[in-house]
């Protein structure tokens, strides 16, 4: 066992949190927001009676759920520049920053998982409520926005949050694109100073504390919601 120098953590705290953790949290927040919105739309498509809406949504969700996140990260990293070029009509693949690329990747990937949660949430609302909505003259979008979705969200909040904690942990995988997220920052310091043990133990501790605290909050919330019902 060599001599450990845990001072390296203290010296790099600014870099680790101001650069690394800020990136991780921004990515988590944007991907969760985008993923829930897009996932809700996917869930509504899957529950649609129109085959041409439900089939593509089902295929998309199943595809995303059967391949590893890392492969999805690589796919989008190379695909997004081409899609971007196609959208703006450029002849060459456009430059997309690592940040934009990872936000799009996580949004699209998590949407598949959030959509499964939202689908369960929508299905937990009794059908009679939809009919009641139509009976008082609301159209599909009004029924969804004013009757079904608010309740579906409310019922699913604990599971949505749990999925977001998983997302928070999964964002560490952007490491493979050499991005400076929290783990990326820790790993860069670790390699620069030859302090792998100290930095990786510290990274594990920080991820643990944040995820543990959040899942404790989810547990409390679950109990609160259970009492209201």
């Amino acid at each position, binding site marked *: *066992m*060599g001599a450990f120098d845990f001072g390296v953590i203290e010296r790099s705290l600014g870099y680790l949190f101001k650069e690394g953790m800020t990136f991780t949290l921004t990515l988590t927040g944007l991907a969760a927001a985008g993923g829930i919105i897009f996932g809700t739309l996917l869930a509504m498509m899957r529950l649609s009676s129109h085959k041409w809406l439900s089939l593509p949504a089902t295929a998309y969700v199943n*595809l995303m*759920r*059967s*391949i*590893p*996140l*890392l*492969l999805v990260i*690589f*796919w989008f990293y*190379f*695909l997004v520049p*081409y899609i971007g*070029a*196609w959208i703006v009509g450029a*002849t*060459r693949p456009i430059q997309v920053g690592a940040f934009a690329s990872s936000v799009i990747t996580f949004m699209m990937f998590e949407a598949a*998982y959030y959509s499964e*949660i939202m689908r369960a949430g929508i299905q937990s609302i009794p059908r009679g409520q939809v009919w009641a909505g139509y009976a008082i003259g609301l159209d599909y979008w009004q029924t969804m926005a004013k009757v079904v979705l608010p309740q579906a969200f409310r019922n699913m909040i604990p*599971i949505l949050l*749990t*999925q977001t904690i*998983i997302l928070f*942990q*999964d964002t*560490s*995988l952007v*490491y*493979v694109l050499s991005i400076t997220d929290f*783990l990326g920052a820790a*790993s860069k310091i670790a390699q620069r100073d030859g302090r*792998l*043990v100290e930095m*990786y*133990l510290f*990274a*594990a501790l920080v*991820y*643990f504390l944040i*995820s*543990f605290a959040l*899942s404790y909050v989810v547990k409390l919330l679950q109990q609160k919601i259970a009492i209201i019902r």
Partner: protein
Amino acid sequence: MNYNWNWKIFFEVSADGRHTWLTTLFMGLGWTLITALCAGIIAFLLGSALGVMRTTPSKWAVRLGNAYVEFFRNIPLLVQLFLWFFVLPELLPKGMGNSIKQMTPPWASFVPAVLGLGLFTAARVSEQVRAGIQALSRGQGQAGTALGLTLPQRYRYVLLPMAYRIIMPPLTSETMNLIKNTSVALTIGLVELTAAARSMQEFTFQVFEAFTAATAIYIVVNLIVVNLMRWLEKSIAVPGFIGPSVAGGGH
């Protein structure tokens, strides 16, 4: 879009100079499956033990089991693999640490990958096993007691046989998760399927052919595993029982 498609690339000789790229991808698949299988055995055995512990009347066993699950669920898998790969050899006594570091290439990343994935997945399996046991009605355990069975016998002959049947669907998705999660081991140098596709992309610049092939292989593996598990579930089903499925999230 000006991308040069070249599907013949799969039959060209790969970077190792001996195999074609197609063979390289399938060798990657081999490592994916063998890693998943070894980690799966650890996860199943340890996860079952932990799941049982967490349903026993012993407070300490429950606490220990809960602590294990909290620890392994709240640290990202990637960080856990780094702990096994980079940190563990440094914390062990010098002789042991050095012998770990001197392992030859595939094993140097294979062993930590199997350990890391196995212990990580065990936490998730234990959640399912616990849920499966708790889904059984209390009367089953009590009937076991009334028949004069000891606690281990109650688990062995009454609770576990039904619990495993109930949790077949979530165990199926855990199996899929495990196979997908082996890709994380590419960060510690294991050349499994995703890493093989990535190296093909780096050497040939045929990005989309490489990733399309890997995606197709994952989908086929997915279908095979799901159907195998469904067949297993059917062949061990007890007539008259329809197990309530336990929700499994995450990836």
